[in-house]
């Protein structure tokens, strides 16, 4: 049995930031376990720019952002294992992992940071009718083929879903000589950031079909055409609105799912809306000493927020190891009101917060001129004016700890107040 103070599962942006911050907080025996052949995670395939505006105050590409953290990890001498797959995590923090050089590894940790990221939703998960030809990829898989392996996945492309990866791939495929015929989005608004709509679609005159979906896929060995139809307000296809696009490739950008099989096996409680663990102010899950951060906790739109959240997880994992986290039984619950889909963290133990409590949340719909109303128990604590809110853009609220401490609050509620009309 190997022994470590902190084992971080996943060597992407979340795991790297957590490990570095844990070491900065005085814990030395740290191990990062990564299943890929190198550190950096999905950032290595995100070759576009736009990362790091908040953390580094400059626009980096994904690989540049990753490399800064990898360099720091190496300089600090933090141990890591590549090509190593974690098979199981137990509630008493034993990790079973394997690789081809060491075989099966049993690792006892004092604290664990879950940083496994998320997976893409596939065709099977959304049940598109039709044949099952080659040429249908998730957008992220295509991104890896094109940007890292050097394989062009197709020449005439339709993209289903307007999440950021789909938009980024629309531009990328266009630059590499493909014709992107359409981006098709089920919802009446895009699932991606506005700047991606403008810079990836509008710049290249790629049409975006909102409130549309794919109702049929044709093709025998390779995909040959897709049928696209408009949907009604219940997201059901409207007969008679079908258009046929002839294509050799379909990319799916239809959502990301936190990858929590390991967390669930360990007995960590999962939140039904985030798909990630229920956590407290320290990013600690329902099992003491097991922490979670990044896309395994909830899917983020900006890596900068992943870094910030993961530093918090890493720091608190270190505090846990040093026995500095306070458990006195009392916790404030965060609750969602009108228009707020979820809030992370779900529980707050005020004693452990050093300066600010940061609440991260997503709204349920697109709102203009709304107010975000924060209540402590039944009292309105603050109203924040928001000109624009969208499900694709994560919101955060900071509450100074001085406003929470020694007040015995039971709940913090965040709701939207939307002006009529």
């Amino acid at each position, binding site marked *: 049995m190997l022994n470590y103070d902190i084992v971080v599962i996943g060597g992407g942006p979340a795991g790297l930031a957590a490990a570095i911050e844990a070491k900065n907080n005085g814990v030395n025996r740290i191990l990062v376990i990564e299943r890929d*052949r*190198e550190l950096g995670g999905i950032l*290595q395939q995100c*070759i*576009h*720019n736009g990362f790091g505006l908040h953390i580094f105050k400059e*626009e*980096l*590409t*994904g*690989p*540049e952002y*990753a*490399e800064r953290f990898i360099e720091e990890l190496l300089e600090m001498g933090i141990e890591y294992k590549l090509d190593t797959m974690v098979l199981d995590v137990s509630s008493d923090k034993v990790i079973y992992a394997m690789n081809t050089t060491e075989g099966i590894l049993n690792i006892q940790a004092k604290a664990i940071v879950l940083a496994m990221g998320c997976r893409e939703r596939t065709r099977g998960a959304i049940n598109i009718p039709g044949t099952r030809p080659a040429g249908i990829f998730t957008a992220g898989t295509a991104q890896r083929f*094109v*940007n*890292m*392996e*050097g394989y062009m996945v197709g020449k005439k492309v339709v993209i289903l879903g307007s999440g950021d990866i789909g938009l980024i791939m629309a531009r990328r495929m266009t*630059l*590499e000589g493909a014709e992107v015929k359409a981006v098709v989005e089920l919802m009446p608004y895009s699932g991606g*950031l*506005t*700047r991606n*709509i*403008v*810079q990836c679609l*509008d*710049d290249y005159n790629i049409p975006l079909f909102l409130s549309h979906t794919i109702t049929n896929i044709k093709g025998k060995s390779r995909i040959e055409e897709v049928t696209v139809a408009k949907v009604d307000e219940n997201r059901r296809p409207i007969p008679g609105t079908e258009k046929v696009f002839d294509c050799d490739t379909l990319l799916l950008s239809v959502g990301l799912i936190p990858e929590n099989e390991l967390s669930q096996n360990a007995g960590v409680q999962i939140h039904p809306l985030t798909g990630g663990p229920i956590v407290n102010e320290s990013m600690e899950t329902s099992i003491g000493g097991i922490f979670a951060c990044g896309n395994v906790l909830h899917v983020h739109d900006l890596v900068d927020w992943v870094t910030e959240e993961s530093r918090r997880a890493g720091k608190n994992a270190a505090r846990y190891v040093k026995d500095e986290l306070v458990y006195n039984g009392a916790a404030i619950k965060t609750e969602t009101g009108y228009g707020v889909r979820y809030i992370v963290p779900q529980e707050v133990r005020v004693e452990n917060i050093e300066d600010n409590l940061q609440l991260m949340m997503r709204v349920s719909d697109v709102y203009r001129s709304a107010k975000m109303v924060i209540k402590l128990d039944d009292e309105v604590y603050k109203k924040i004016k928001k*000109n*624009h809110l*969208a499900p694709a*853009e994560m919101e955060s609220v900071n509450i100074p700890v001085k406003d929470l401490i020694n007040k015995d609050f039971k709940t913090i509620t965040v709701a939207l107040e939307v002006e009529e009309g």
Partner: protein
Amino acid sequence: MKKQNMVCIACPLGCQIEVEHKQNGEDQYIVTGNKCPRGKDYGIKEMTNPTRVLTSTVKIKNAHLNRLPVRSIGEVPKGLIFKCMDEIDDVEVISPIKVGDIIIKNIMNTGIDIVASRSM
């Protein structure tokens, strides 16, 4: 007189703006629909000289991957993007490469360099 509609991306608000180009002796640009001065600057830049950061990949030999990601240091004119891509397509480098190494100097005479965005 020329009019163009666009979405401003200076901030997440995404104002629908309209830029009108008038030529009465001198060039005049009238931006409407913007809620802040940044929208005006954005609109005028988009009408006069839109530029973009360009990111792509080049072939790499002797590395653990087949492609090296590259980026422009600064923005290239939007109209030259496909020409820049042609130039980038012809390049092949040999590992080792350090992040920031210049891969193409002064691409398409824009004064902009294309550099490696990772070490490999």
